[in-house]
């Protein structure tokens, strides 16, 4: 079974986000970049298929980006991906990234394309659905579980408002993952050593064009001063909230 795991190279969740002074881009000075946490669920689930369920699996990790994303791809290799591919183009918007992924995946006939439910930098949650539509594949989003059945049948669970939906589908499929799909894995020393020798191909890609241009970044409006309420008379809070029409 061939699995493609798409990986975004994103600032660590603890990062205090700072933009360049002209607002053109993230100021990445001192920022630690990691595998997008949601993407890691897909990678872990792919490895579970192999290790816990005895499936023959080959896992390719792919990222669209400059040389800087190679460290993140090496981490995916250390966790257990067999090979990695870097599409040597800056990631500009959902459409362009999806197009690059689809162009790469189309002739290679992957059984599963795993992605995170969204990247924690652009948060669009659009790339998986775009790739599925471009490739004419079924798509299950916000998946929290995936089980392989007979003859390519798959059963997934996905989060919906107020519950969990059970979905039946068929390989090949695009799945966007979130918490629940698998447990994250910490790379072992042996994996880190092995990762250095695993293939990491750099390809020029399809020259897909962006559709949504970022004109600038700014910060969310600052909160006003905190109004402190005496803990001995907390009912003042309720009066305040009622007065402002909040409750």
């Amino acid at each position, binding site marked *: 079974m061939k699995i493609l795991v798409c990986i975004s190279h994103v600032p660590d*969740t603890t*990062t205090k986000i700072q*933009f360049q002074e002209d607002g053109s881009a*993230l100021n990445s000075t001192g920022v630690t970049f990691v595998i997008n*946490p949601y993407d890691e669920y897909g990678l872990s689930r792919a490895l579970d298929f192999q290790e816990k369920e005895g499936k023959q699996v080959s896992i390719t990790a792919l990222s669209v980006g400059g040389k800087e994303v190679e460290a993140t791809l090496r981490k995916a290799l250390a966790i257990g991906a067999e090979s990695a591919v870097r599409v040597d183009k800056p990631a500009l918007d*959902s*459409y362009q990234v*999806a197009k690059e992924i689809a162009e790469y995946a189309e002739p290679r006939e992957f059984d599963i394309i795993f992605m995170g439910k969204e990247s*924690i*930098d*652009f*948060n*669009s949650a*659009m*790339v998986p*659905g*775009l790739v*599925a*539509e*471009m490739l004419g594949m*079924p*798509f*299950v*989003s*916000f998946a929290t579980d995936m089980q392989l059945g007979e003859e390519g049948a798959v059963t997934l669970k996905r989060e*919906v*408002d*107020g*519950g*969990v*939906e*059970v*979905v039946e*589908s*068929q390989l090949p499929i695009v799945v966007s993952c979130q*918490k*629940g799909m698998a447990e994250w894995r910490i790379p072992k020393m042996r994996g880190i050593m092995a990762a250095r020798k695993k293939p990491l191909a750099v390809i020029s890609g399809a020259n897909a064009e962006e*559709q*949504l*241009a*970022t*004109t*600038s*970044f*700014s*910060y*969310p409006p600052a*909160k006003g001063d*905190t*109004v*402190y*309420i005496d*803990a001995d008379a*907390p*009912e003042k*809070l*309720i*009066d305040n*909230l009622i007065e402002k029409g909040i*409750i």
Partner: protein
Amino acid sequence: MSVLLFAENAQGTFKKATFEAATYAYDLAQAMGTTLSAVSVGQVSEEALASLGKYGVSNIYDVRDEKFNAFVNTAYAAAIANVAKKIDAKAVVMTQSYNGRAVAPRVAVKLRATPISGVTSMVDPADGFKALRLSYSGKGVQSFRTDNDKVVLTVKGNSYQITENPVTAEVISADFSASEENFDAIAKEIIKASEGISLTEADTVVSAGRGMKGPENWGIIEEMAELLGAATACSKPTADMDWRPHHEHVGQTGIQIAPNLYIAIGISGAIQHLAGVSSSKTIVVINKDPEAPFFKVADYGIVGDLFEVVPKLNAAIRAAKAAV
């Protein structure tokens, strides 16, 4: 030229988020000098369909083949795109829901439109649909534009004021039978998380963290939520320790929410938690540690022992309700 709303239903009725998207779509149609149409997919009563007229929807294309009773993103996208092409929609608007985000990208590809996720302000149709959306998990705001003359956008929940713009809505039966191959990932059943209020749709959310000391103490939190008609939520550590169910975990790696009122009790406010809740309109923080980082983003703060403060608050809410 027109604007098309995908009027998403939940078990046959429309929820607040759909009316919010409808208001947004109506204002956009006004700005473009055109009318607003909607497409409804699945079984929705005539009465519920007509209620969309209250929010400015003039034409409602009703796709109610029973094959659409269960959600299938491929088939839904085909139905929506079919109507969008028929009426030459320049903008397709939908909610930033689980299903909205599954359908939007497919519709965008079918229409060769630019997909835009989670807009928080009105797009300017005269200037590349420029507007704002959040990025970096709420820590940044992205200004964007597109050269494309067609867009598919999802509207972030609780970011746009619902207003009524009553018109007479005409329901048009839209015969659309998507081919079998579109039914490629079929929802078999929905396992309800609980009978409580859905976290992503709640106006008020009462959330608690490690300060609760143990799952057995959550009674006062549930009581407050019930009094306020609120949903309950929790921090990552409490979900990880199985004090609370995982579907209650809000934060950067859990659910991101933006209610009108978020009450954080015994949560210190780690940056990952803040990323998931900082778009809330009003934030109340109750914590015994005056140095808790959560106070920096709070509108109201109470420094004190939650086991004393919360019961007093519950009593005050009860008294206020009795006085009405």
